[in-house]
């Protein structure tokens, strides 16, 4: 087993050094650093907006580009968290806690170096864990039938309810909207048209997930950012001299421990669908503080407080690829869009990917190692450039993003109708997000919707309509029990808390 892994990894690494793929890694890392650093844009926005452009290259090069963009964005988020004091993307929120005080104390260069190095260490640990876990998990998942597939998807949605931390009825609503939108068009089994709103023929072709994803993460996100960044921003000064940099590299000793711990946590949190990089970085920060000898200095400019969340979010981004590649269940909104992209490229996500498209899988894994190294170098080298870019007015970036969204959606589906839908989704998504309706579950659901319905109905046809089939198979039973517990936990907890509050009042 180990030997095949090493030889496959070797060929994957070779593949990622092919000129086109290497170019894609560079382009992806740069694009990622950029979207990560721009306030309001994160990996998910970059991946959604640029997915239509990747049809230019073969699927392996495309996924390498988008994956590199994903890690790049994790690095980039730290740049604005530290120099602007506002997170470049939600995944870098925890980096602000100590990054901002450090910048205010004139130590922005130390914080930026620590963030880059910690991201690199976190990413590397996570990629090694990924390489070790992915092949056996895929082999194990080969035994899965449609019952297990369906149960896993139920589990994925349940994690949003149990661990998502958002308002529960709103989360459920968001999941259901995504699933219903995915059901528009012809029924896969009977071939009957469904949910043809206002008898418009255009709905018969269904709603492509990218229309919703770009609507929400492109249009909606820009509207959201226009609102939140209308105030003036202040950039902190950064000393980017070589002497400073060498001194800063020496500080690694101060945070290597928390970084390693953060990477482990990040990887496992990242594999959970509802969690992803944002909670991973927050948890990693919390643990670093708990285990620190000097917890009071956290929040006042402790370098470990910058390193820990950066290691966590980078590790989580790699971790979230694990269920996507092996099980066909995305571990984060970004990987949900990658999964949708794989379907458009004609690949069938799931355990068979390892046997059917080994070049694709191992090319991706090999590229992770290369991309991580490329990103840390680019990041450190380009810090002065990115600081200049961050000073760019938002009113230049916004229309460019809008144009990419409109043209990208049209180019993917060849229909004006879809660009109209995208605008509607964007505006409605923005209005709902202002009321704390989580949007990520809807995007995950529209990607998984067709797969979920197909596996549900396949299971029931093979069992001749006996719903007990989901409970008779051990893995599917286990998934459903965990899912039920995840849904029940916050409800029971909430009821208990309310009863206690009432008892306290009396």
């Amino acid at each position: 087993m180990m030997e095949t892994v090493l030889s496959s990894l070797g060929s994957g690494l070779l593949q990622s050094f092919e000129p086109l793929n290497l170019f894609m890694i560079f382009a992806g890392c740069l694009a990622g650093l950029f979207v990560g650093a721009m306030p309001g844009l994160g990996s998910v926005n970059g991946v959604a907006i640029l997915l239509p452009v990747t049809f230019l290259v073969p699927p392996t090069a495309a996924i390498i580009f988008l994956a590199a963009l994903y890690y790049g964005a994790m690095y980039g988020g730290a740049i604005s968290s530290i120099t602007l004091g506002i997170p470049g993307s939600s995944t870098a929120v925890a980096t602000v806690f100590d990054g901002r005080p450090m910048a205010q104390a004139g130590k922005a260069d130390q914080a930026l170096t620590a963030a880059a190095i910690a991201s690199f260490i976190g990413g590397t640990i996570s990629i090694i864990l990924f390489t070790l876990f992915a092949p056996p998990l895929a082999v194990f998942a080969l035994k899965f039938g449609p019952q297990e597939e369906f149960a896993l998807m139920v589990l994925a949605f349940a994690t949003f309810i149990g661990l998502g931390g958002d308002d529960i009825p709103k989360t459920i609503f968001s999941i259901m909207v995504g699933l219903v939108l995915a059901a528009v068009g012809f029924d896969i089994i009977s071939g009957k048209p469904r949910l043809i709103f206002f008898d418009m023929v255009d709905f018969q072709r269904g709603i492509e997930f990218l229309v919703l994803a770009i609507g929400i993460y492109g249009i909606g996100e820009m509207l959201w950012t226009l609102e939140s960044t209308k105030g003036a921003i202040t950039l902190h000064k950064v000393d980017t001299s070589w002497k400073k940099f060498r001194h800063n590299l020496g500080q690694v000793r101060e945070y290597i421990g928390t970084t390693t711990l953060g990477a482990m946590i990040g990887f496992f949190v990242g594999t959970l669908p509802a969690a992803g990089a944002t909670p991973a970085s927050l948890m990693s920060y919390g643990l670093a503080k708990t285990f620190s000898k000097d917890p009071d200095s956290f929040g006042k400019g402790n370098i470990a407080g910058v390193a820990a969340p950066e290691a966590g979010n980078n590790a989580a981004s790699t971790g979230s690829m694990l269920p996507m590649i092996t099980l066909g269940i995305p571990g984060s909104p970004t990987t949900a869009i990658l999964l949708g992209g794989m379907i458009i490229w004609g690949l069938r996500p799931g355990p068979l990917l390892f046997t059917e498209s080994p070049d694709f899988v191992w090319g991706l894994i090999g590229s992770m190692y290369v991309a991580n190294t490329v990103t840390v170098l680019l990041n450190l080298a380009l810090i002065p450039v990115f600081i200049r870019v961050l000073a760019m007015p938002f009113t230049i970036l916004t229309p460019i993003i809008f144009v990419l969204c409109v043209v990208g959606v049209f180019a993917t589906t060849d229909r004006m109708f879809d660009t109209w839908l995208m605008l509607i989704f964007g505006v409605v998504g923005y209005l709902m997000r202002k009321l704390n309706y989580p949007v990520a579950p809807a995007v995950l659901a529209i990607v998984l919707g067709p797969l979920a319905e197909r596996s549900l109905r396949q299971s029931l046809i093979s069992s001749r309509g006996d719903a007990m089939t989901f409970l008779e198979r051990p893995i599917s039973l286990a998934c459903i029990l965990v899912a039920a517990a995840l849904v029940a936990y916050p409800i029971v907890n909430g009821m208990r808390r309310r009863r206690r509050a009432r008892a306290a009042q009396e």
Partner: protein
Amino acid sequence: MTVRTAELLMAIATFLASLGLMLNVYVSDLNIGWVEGRGPGAGMWPFWLAFVMALASFATLVRWIRGITPESRSTEDYVDRDTLFLVVISAVALLVLLILFEIIGAYFSLMLFMFFYLRTIGRHGWVATWSLVIGTPIFVYLLFEVALTKYLPKGLPFFENLFLYVDDIRYSLF
């Protein structure tokens, strides 16, 4: 409008939309029940999903009445004045962009959109404005039309014919 009012209106809207979805499935020729020996009918999946949507919206309504969600107690402005200006003008600009796509074609409308956004909203100088007004359609043309071989809308015949000249130049080059 306060956040509190917005929360109520949104919950009512989502509730009605869910009922509309259920009705849409119900009145069409789809089986929303169980087919003996085969499992769910074609309409069962969307119908019951919409039913859960309705339940979730109803739960939000109940929580609004009982003041459980923070939004249901907030008396802040849902959209304040400055935001309203930026967001509405952006959304309307996009709307006009899409309408113009089908009249004067993608490229001319992109130029107008960029000009409006950079000059009127961004108040940028002429150099920045013109370089993006001219650069954006060229970039889009090269990326989507040439590299991805996608035919973007060219608008009414008059504007479509104008574009033939551009295509002529392109094909004479590569």
